[in-house]
């Protein structure tokens, strides 16, 4: 069971992306998200999709590491797109300053080329970020990441809590599976067969036992940490700490140059949108 449940968690593989420092990956990831959030320039976005996809491929990430979360994001994306389409059907026309009707739906609701193009941009924005998020999560060793955060000046208490949360997530997932199985055997059906309202009501039969076993675990862990001197000194060193290397610097230079270029390219005409309708 433990083997199946390692969703979106760090897995050691031998690729140059895994070898990068956690800080490099974090800075890359943050700048990447900022650029993606700011620009609506289709050309920039398409380049970013290509780069993101390449990163994900190079990191040798397997579908079973990310599949379930990917599907969930897709559901939200579709909801988002549908909501934009019906809530403000002329958003695209306002942005691009023209109106090219394709067909009439109902009332005063028309499908326009501008709206479709705008929604296309929304969708590809998702796809610039998703692969980068996945690659970041599955290739970053949490302890090394905590160490490098601490190196950047974040307090080690905060840095370590990230590492320790990741350390215990698999244990808690396993507890969850065991508790759910046992409760299901008692007749508390949590599968899709039961009604949604029942499922929500019955979640308590899993949440409470999970909460109690997790609380007692926290108690043991915090005692164990204290007994081995955690929090004793103002500073601490890290076994997993890795200094920045040549590849790290190259990636950092790349992302800074890329971000500057992407923003200049996008805002050169004073608008964040690329307008093919002019």
């Amino acid at each position: 069971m433990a083997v199946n449940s390692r969703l979106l968690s760090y897995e050691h593989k031998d690729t140059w992306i895994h070898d990068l420092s956690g800080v490099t990956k974090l800075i890359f990831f943050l700048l990447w998200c900022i650029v993606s959030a700011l620009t609506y320039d289709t050309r920039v976005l398409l380049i970013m999709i290509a780069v993101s996809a390449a990163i994900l491929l190079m990191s040798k990430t397997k579908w079973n590491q990310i599949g379930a979360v990917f599907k969930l994001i897709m559901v939200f994306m579709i909801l988002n797109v549908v909501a934009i389409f019906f809530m403000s059907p002329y958003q695209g026309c306002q942005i691009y300053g023209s109106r090219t009707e394709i067909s009439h739906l109902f009332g005063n609701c028309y499908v326009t080329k501008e709206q479709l193009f705008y929604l296309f941009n929304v969708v590809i924005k998702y796809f610039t970020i998703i692969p980068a998020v996945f690659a970041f999560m599955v290739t970053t060793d949490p302890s090394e990441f905590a160490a490098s955060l601490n190196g950047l000046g974040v307090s080690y208490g905060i840095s370590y809590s990230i590492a320790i949360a990741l350390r215990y997530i698999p244990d808690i997932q396993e507890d969850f599976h065991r508790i759910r199985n046992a409760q299901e055997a008692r007749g508390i059906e949590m599968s899709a067969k039961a009604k949604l309202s029942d499922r929500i009501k019955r979640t308590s039969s899993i949440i409470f036992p999970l909460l109690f076993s997790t609380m007692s675990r926290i108690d043991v862990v915090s005692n164990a940490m204290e007994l081995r001197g955690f929090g004793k000194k103002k500073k601490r060193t890290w076994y997993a700490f890795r200094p920045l290397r040549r590849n790290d610097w190259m990636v950092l230079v790349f992302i800074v140059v890329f971000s500057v270029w992407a923003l200049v390219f996008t805002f050169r005409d004073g608008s964040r949108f690329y307008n093919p309708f002019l």
Partner: protein
Amino acid sequence: MEPIIEFDRFSFRYRSQTEPSLYDIDLKIYPGEKILITGPSGCGKSTLARCINALIPCSLRGESSGTVKVDGEVPEKAGIFGMSKKVGTVLQDTDGQFIGLTVAEDLAFALENDAVPQPEMRERVAQIAGTVNLQKLLHHAPGELSGGQKQRVSMGGVLVDNVKILLFDEPLANLDPATGKRTIALIDDIMKMKEVTAIIIEHRLEDVLYRDVDRIVVMQDGRIVTDRKPDDLLCSSVLTECGVREPLYVTAIKYTGMQIRPEDRPQHIESMNVEPYREAVRKWFREAPVRDRQNDNNAILEVKDLCFSYFSGEPVLQHVSFTLKKGEMVSMVGRNGAGKSTLSALICGFLKPDSGAILLDGKDISPLSVKERGERIGLVMQSPNQMISKPMIRDEVGLGLTVRGIPEAEVKERVEKTLRICGLYPYRNWPVSALSFGQKKRVTIASILVMDPDILILDEPTAGQDYRHYTEIMEFLLEINRTTGITILMITHDMHLMLEYTDRAIVIADGTLVTDDTPAHVLTDDAITEKADLKKTSLYDLAVRCGIPDPSELAERFIAYERADTKKEEEVPADGR
């Protein structure tokens, strides 16, 4: 020589409790000694340990009087951090103690906190990995390690600090018997390599005595009852009076009516002088009752040629077949990760087999859902905290019926009937939180029994329980087995449980069924105990050393004798209660 640990008229009361947990403790421990502190649950042995590593009073507050000194310092003044340089504590829960994401990081944890520079840290980690034999596992995550390996990581993690005192809090509680034995041997080896004092808190006396200890401190109700050499202690009746189980061979010799003498060195059966007791044991053997284990009932559960793997090519279970007869009590044993839990998950339907069949009352149960199987096969998990979800006992026990839409009146009637069987009727309106661990365990068993299943599967029903609670839980299971005729399958590490309470043992090793035989035969067979990481019972050694022709029969008769004994005890006060 100056003692390294000294308690002088020390008493302690937790802030949340009205009665003190320790009274007038006077104890001196000298450098290099190996001390076993034993006693029933709640006797104060863990509290005593916490006074040594300064968890008391720095983290757990309360009132104390008298003094404690550890290596010349007062723990209260040195604080938890100060004491962590002197005292290395190995906790019972090896999972909780494993803080790092890999073995190497966990070993380095104390050094990291001490801000040791990275190159020196790596060197010391490599060195300590050698001491506890973990060199090849340095980059493994906790999930990839066995219980024994995790225990070695725990030990390495405290040894890396060059501590003077090693404090073990029930180190054997979560380990299979063979791993427990190796742990005790490792403690001994470490003491030879490094100059440390070891304090072991444990109620599994016989397992700790696998290697010599210098003194045994017996505690009861917060006081030290006795503090003496193992050979002397085993000759007295203090252990039995305090509710600590003696080594089985010692009990067996005492049953013969002989008085054991310290000069015969009863600490280990292998090196004990059995000559003076030989005739008495043989005579007792001839006269002891023979145990009757015949069960001619029909099969209730048949497992046929079951195979399972999470990933193709990596089989977890291979061609497992066995049968449970109606009304049997059977144990399933084998080391951690041998496939026992997977097998019970297959029976309950949490997992689907690759091939093979499971028959209940002769019918294939593969079409049944988890819920439908749950009505016939009940699973009780190891810790009650993993099952209890309702605040009130009555609601918790009735939960399985309520969700099946059974009318309220019938639920009430069945819940009350079950509570009576389980001895919980007086508490029916209590909140679950007011119950003891053993009572909570009963609640979880009741919440399964209420559905009237044919089979009860229990995962480690007595893990971490002292002798009294162990007996309480097992006698209760035996009673419901007798009164309701329910078939009981127990997954266990406890060799005593298997020997005393079950008719048959199914032994699993590396995903295959090794044997399916009486516990006495299993526990006296070298090849099987070796393969499945079990531990041979010391009764077998006693029988061999006394020249009894069929050595495994001694274990059988010993259990039959004890059973007859407890029955007599039960019958006397039954009316008067």
